[in-house]
């Protein structure tokens, strides 16, 4: 199956959000270690460097790997989304199973010009299938496309 990659902007979103998670604790630790330098008798420099090194993989490499594993394909009858680095998850949603749709954009996503499409089904464990990293135009086009599949079912 040919999967389309997400927009490059999504990589920016992933990078910045992982930085936002990792940097404040790092700064906090640096401040704390410097302040307690006399008490602990430890030089803060090497410790901070070690901490930064420890965070380097999840913060700088992780987003690239995660970004690359994402892929999707919108077929005639179903949407297919794949993601996951260690555990790879392939989810397929039959379009006629979609209950309602969200087109969503957070502040970071707006900054990088990407949009999220969220498909809601009547399922439980997996009732929300999220496809991030689309341009606004694509997300809206897909939404309209998917909506056309939702028609009255014989109940």
């Amino acid at each position: 199956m040919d999967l389309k990659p997400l927009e490059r902007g999504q990589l920016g979103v992933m990078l910045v959000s992982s930085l936002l998670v990792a940097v404040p604790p790092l700064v906090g630790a640096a401040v704390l270690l410097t302040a307690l330098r006399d008490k602990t008798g430890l030089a803060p420099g090497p410790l901070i460097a070690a901490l930064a090194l420890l965070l380097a993989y999840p913060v700088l490499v992780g987003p690239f790997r995660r970004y690359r594993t994402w892929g999707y394909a919108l077929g005639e009858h179903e949407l297919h989304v794949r993601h996951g680095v260690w555990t790879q998850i392939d989810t397929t949603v039959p379009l006629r199973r979609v209950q309602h749709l969200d087109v969503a954009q957070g502040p970071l996503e707006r900054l990088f010009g990407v949009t999220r499409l969220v498909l809601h089904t009547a399922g439980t464990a997996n009732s929300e299938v999220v496809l991030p990293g689309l341009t606004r135009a694509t997300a809206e086009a897909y939404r309209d496309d998917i909506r056309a599949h939702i028609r009255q079912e014989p109940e």
Partner: protein
Amino acid sequence: VTDQAQAVADRRVHPGTIGLRFLKDLPQTLIGLPALFSVMADTGWQYVIPLAAGAATILAFVQWIAWRRFRYGVGASEIVIESGLLSRNRRSIPFDRIQDIDIERGPLHRLFGLAKVKIETGAGGKAEGVLDSVTLDEADRLRRSIRAGKSGMAEGAETAPALAEPAGRPIFTMNPVRVLASGLFNFSLIWVAGLFGLLQTFEPLIPFDIKDPGRLLGLVEENGNRFTLGAIAAVLLLALALGVVSGIVRTTLGDWGFRLLAEGKRLRRERGLLTRSEVVIPKRRVQLALFRTGPLRKALGLGELLVQTLGSGQGQSGLQSVAPFATGAEVDRVMAEFPRLHLPDGEALTRVSSRHVLRVAIQTVTLPLFVIAVASTQRPEAVAFVPLLPLLLAGAVLRRRFHRYGVSGNLLFVQAGFWKRQLWALPMANAQSVSLSRSWLQRRLALATLAIDTAGAPGFGGPRIVDLPIERARELSALVLAQSSRDTASASRAGDPGS
């Protein structure tokens, strides 16, 4: 519905909402005031009023922004709702998916002459769209235009289909003996654990130290005459008896006078000793059947049959027991009510890949083995735990023996579990989505886990086939999707009384 005209979100909820929400949030703010006062005690009272006013202004401003940012609109075939301050969300709910439009009016709403409109698609418990709040006229207009937009929806079609067949035909009942027998199998170990918890609480009254499991398991020397094997046996027997009795009591309270009645297009279940509960199960809302049993019950040819329903309006969502303790023949009779469903009938189910055992072995044995290896460098006697590892392996082998799947016509069967044996019969057309997941180890072993999401399932624990060979998983996934995503209207409803 072919009209693809874009719905424009050009309406806001009533401005009175700002005042309404402000008043609603005020109590929380008032609770914050004492804290404010305690801070103010040092700085002087003259600041309190301006500060409170400032807080109120900010609160009102936030509500105003939220009001400004919330917009909705009704198109030819859908309702759109835009919301969010920083994170913008635009939701489209097609009319055809809307099951219920609730109009709610609390005391504050009445004060402002407003109403809260809740739009439900019947998917989950919560409303998918909430308009808080609009005028009563607008609420009425919304309801009318959504109803009009829904192609061919007869108002109140959901209610009162039963009049045609007033007296239900009983298809499964349980007499007192059956209820008590069923209770015997509802033995629960939780109560045993509970008893030990209780023992711990009243420890001073008990002639041995139960906190020390080593002594409990037979180190008699320390306490000599007071601590005997007899005491342990007595405690275990008591726990066992308590487990059995509690199972019988619970079952008696819950399932006393169990009756399942067929009433045309729906089933009605009544049960309960003190509180009589009544549940209506519309047949066409049934998503799948689940048969549960255990090793002993299986040997006696007994088990429990449940159906999973997608609720809406009066129908309850989730797994409903339709025969808690039934023989094979009785289960077949209940299943006959659902022409599109049946349990595997001589069809051989296939086991999952033999590499499942290998994967479970690697995943469950590696860590304990590592721990033992490390521990044995310090204390050689740790090696004594090695004989326990084959037990873990035996568990994996046993689990694979009972983890099977099979396809018969439109149905997918999935069986899992040794102690709690579950067998799903799922019309593939009812799959809401299909996930194929492969962990790092599974990829190395060319395995995959296939999970099928269904409507009304209880959280997690729906049909899942763990460790299929990857190519088989892909085939099966394609098969399920072919039935679920194509317009096979005739096959879409499991419980539809065919013809």
